[in-house]
């Protein structure tokens, strides 16, 4: 393989930044959640790239664990969004403001 490892890491950084901007900009709880998924995936790409760089498999194991944790996080997060929707009839994050100072 002759692609420099830095190109993968920079790509992962760009995807992470796009995900961060998505979390900041969007109002729909579902789209915010998708942006968080994008961030998690960007970090996975960086982990696998570093694993390749150091000739070790530990990075791939860590990416694997982060996928499992992301799956659990999606399940709980979507259940919370559904139960908020039942109460408020909206998935807009601005509508949930009881705990706001």
């Amino acid at each position, binding site marked *: *393989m*002759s*692609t*420099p*490892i*830095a*190109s*993968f*890491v920079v*790509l992962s*950084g*760009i*995807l*992470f*930044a*796009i*995900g*961060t*901007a*998505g979390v900041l*900009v*969007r*109002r*729909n709880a*579902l*789209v915010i*959640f*998708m942006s968080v*998924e*994008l961030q998690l*995936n960007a970090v*996975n*790409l960086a982990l*696998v*790239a570093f*694993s*390749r*760089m150091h*000739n070790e*498999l530990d990075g*791939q194991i860590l990416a*694997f*664990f982060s*996928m499992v*944790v*992301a*799956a*659990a*996080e*999606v*399940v*709980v997060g*979507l*259940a919370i969004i*559904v*139960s908020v929707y*039942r*109460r408020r009839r909206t*998935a807009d994050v*601005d509508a949930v403001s009881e705990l706001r100072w």
Partner: protein
Amino acid sequence: MTADQIVFWVFAPVSIVSALLMLAQRNAVHAALFLIVNLFTLAVFFLLLDAPFLFAVQIIVYAGAIMVLFLFVIMLLGVDREEQLVEHLKGQRPLAVLLGAGLVAEIVVAVRAGIGFAERVPEGFGVVNEGGNPKALSEVLFRDYFLPFEVTSVLLIVAAVSAMVLAQRRARPVTRAEREAGVGGGRP
């Protein structure tokens, strides 16, 4: 330019453009579809980086299971409602773009200082992947990372139970206002 460089430079723009388009979609279903495109391109990068097992897991778990869950919830909440794209906070959007660009610049500088742009990957990953990537991965996973693996299974069970508890409908007593109005069968 070798084959893997061509694959990288074809799929990297697809990845970035699909991520940007995901943010620009008004409809949540379209955003989910662009996210699926993005997850597939990431699977291709895993293949380039000699991780065929993660390539398969990425497609099955992410592009398959997790995105089906997302689409299911979007359909459950109603696909026809369009999101309000009007921003209430003043300056939120330019600031978010500015911070995103700053984050990218910071990462580029950090990568340049840390590993350098010219660093090629070392040879000899074939030795690490002896007997195939899934076999090598499972040896590391079940020997060095056995306890974390078991803890993860506990985490998954807790997540499944908590999702059921959170999403179930509870019958609640009928309030007096509802009884007087003659509506409400105890369903929230």
